[in-house]
C-alpha cells in the first residue's frame, strides 16, 4: 500500500481548508497549539500521529476544515515543524501546495519570556524575534528561546 493510499484510509478528504503534512512525529499537538485549536472551537480537525513516512520515518498530519492559514501562522509552524508542507484545499482538490520556509524574522507572533524585556512593559511595540538555526532571539532584549516555543505564542 502506498503512503498516499495509507493516508486516504486514515484521514478522509476535506472539501475546503488546510492540510499540514510532514510534521515531525509527535508534534501535531504543538501545531494545534499554534493555531489555537484546543477543543473549545467549532472547527472540524483531523489529526494523524506517527503515520509511516518515507521522508521522516514517522510523521504527523493535521487537516483543518474551512480554514486557510495566515502567513504569520505558517511562519510560526515553520519554527517547530521545519519540514512541514502546507496544502490549501478547495473543492476537495489541492489548490496550493508549498513547503514552509523559516523566515529570518517573526513579528507579533511570540511573546518574550523575559519579564524584564521592554516588550512586556506596555510599550507600543510589536514583538520581533530573529530566527536562529536552533531557536529564536528577541530583537529587543536578545533573550534566546530554544525550547517550548508554543508556550510563548501570541498569534
Amino acid at each position, binding site marked *: 500500500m502506498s503512503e498516499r493510499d495509507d493516508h486516504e484510509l486514515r484521514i478522509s478528504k476535506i472539501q475546503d481548508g488546510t492540510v499540514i503534512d510532514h510534521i515531525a512525529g509527535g508534534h501535531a499537538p504543538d501545531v494545534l497549539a499554534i493555531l489555537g485549536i484546543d477543543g473549545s472551537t467549532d472547527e472540524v480537525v483531523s489529526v494523524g500521529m506517527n503515520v509511516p513516512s518515507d521522508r521522516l520515518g514517522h510523521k504527523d498530519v493535521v487537516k483543518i476544515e474551512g480554514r486557510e492559514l495566515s502567513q504569520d501562522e505558517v511562519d510560526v509552524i515553520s519554527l517547530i515543524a521545519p519540514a512541514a508542507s502546507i496544502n490549501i484545499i478547495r473543492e476537495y482538490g489541492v489548490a496550493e501546495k508549498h513547503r514552509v520556509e523559516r523566515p529570518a524574522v517573526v513579528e507579533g507572533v511570540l511573546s518574550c519570556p*523575559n519579564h*524584564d*524585556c*521592554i516588550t512586556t512593559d506596555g510599550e507600543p*511595540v510589536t514583538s520581533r524575534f530573529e530566527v536562529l538555526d536552533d531557536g529564536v532571539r528577541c530583537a529587543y532584549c536578545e*533573550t*534566546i528561546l530554544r525550547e517550548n516555543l508554543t508556550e510563548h505564542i501570541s498569534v
Partner: protein
Amino acid sequence: MDDRDHVITAKNLSRADIETVLDRAAAIERDPPDRDRHAGRLLGLCFFEPSTRTRMSFEAAIKRLGGDALDMGPVDSSSATKGESLADTVRVIEGYADALVLRHPSEGAATMASEFVDVPLLNAGDGAGQHPTQTLLDLYTMRENAGGLADLTVGIMGDLKYGRTVHSLAYALTKFDASQHFVSPESLRLPRSVRYDLHEAGAQVREHDDLDEVLSELDVLYVTRIQRERFPDENEYRAVAGEYRIDAETLERARDECIVMHPLPRVDEIAPAVDATEHAHYFEQAHNGVPVRMALLDLLLDDTDGEEAADATDDSANGGSR
C-alpha cells in the same frame, strides 16, 4: 556607528568605530576643544533609574563641549509615574534636544526607544543588557595602560549574568582578538545570548570559578560587583561574594603590569588597600568617562551638523531661482 548614529550595543560598534572614538578622546585630552565648539547644542538626559557617575559624566562632557544638558529629573517626579510610555517620553524630549541619553531598567529599552526618534540616542544602560559607552571608556583605559588593545589577556570577574558592562565589554574585546577569561560562581555565568554571540564571533573564551586558575596570565583584571539583590538568601550572597573579593595579597600573584579595573560603584569586592598599589586604575577609568563621552558626542553632533548643512543646501537648491 549604529543605524542612524544611535549607540545601542557594543555588538554594533566595529573595531574602526571604536578606534575612531578612542583616538578622538586622546586628542581631546591632549588638546581640549574650544569651550564653544558645540555652543547651543542640548543633550537630553533620560534616566529612568538612579545613576550618578554616568549621568554626571555625560553632563560634564556636553558642557565641556560648550553645550548644555536637559535632565528630566528623578523618575519618581517624571511623567513615567503618570503612566506615560517610554516611546512617548523620548519622542517628546527629542523635540527639545539634539541627542538623547537613555538609562532604563528594562532590557531592550534603548533599541525600542531608538525606533521612535531621529536624533542620536545613546544607551547608558538598559537593565542587564548593554552599556556601550562604559565599554568605550573601559577600552580607552586599557589602551592607555596595558600597551594597546590587540591580543590582550583579560580576566572579567563577578556578576557576569546581570552585569551589562561585562556583556558590552565582551563583545568589544572580541573585535580586538583578546583572550577572555570569565571568572564567576556557576549561578552568575554569562547569559545564553552573550555566549551565543561570542561563539558566533569566534571569540577566545574560557570560564573559571577560581581566579587563581588564570590570575598570573592577565594583562587586565576587570572586577564587577556581585549584587546582593540577586540572591534570595543573605548568607548565600555573603558566601559567594567573599569568594570573589580581591585584596593586595591576592594581587601578589598577578603580573606586575596587570591593571585592575572596575566600573564602580564597588562595595567590598576590591579592598581599599588595593587603591594604593600600581595595579589600581578604576578611578582613572571613571575619570576617562568625560573625554570618551566628549569624543562620542563630538562625533555624533558633528554628524548631525553635517546633515543639517546638507539639508540646508537641498532646501536652497529646491527653492533657488537659478
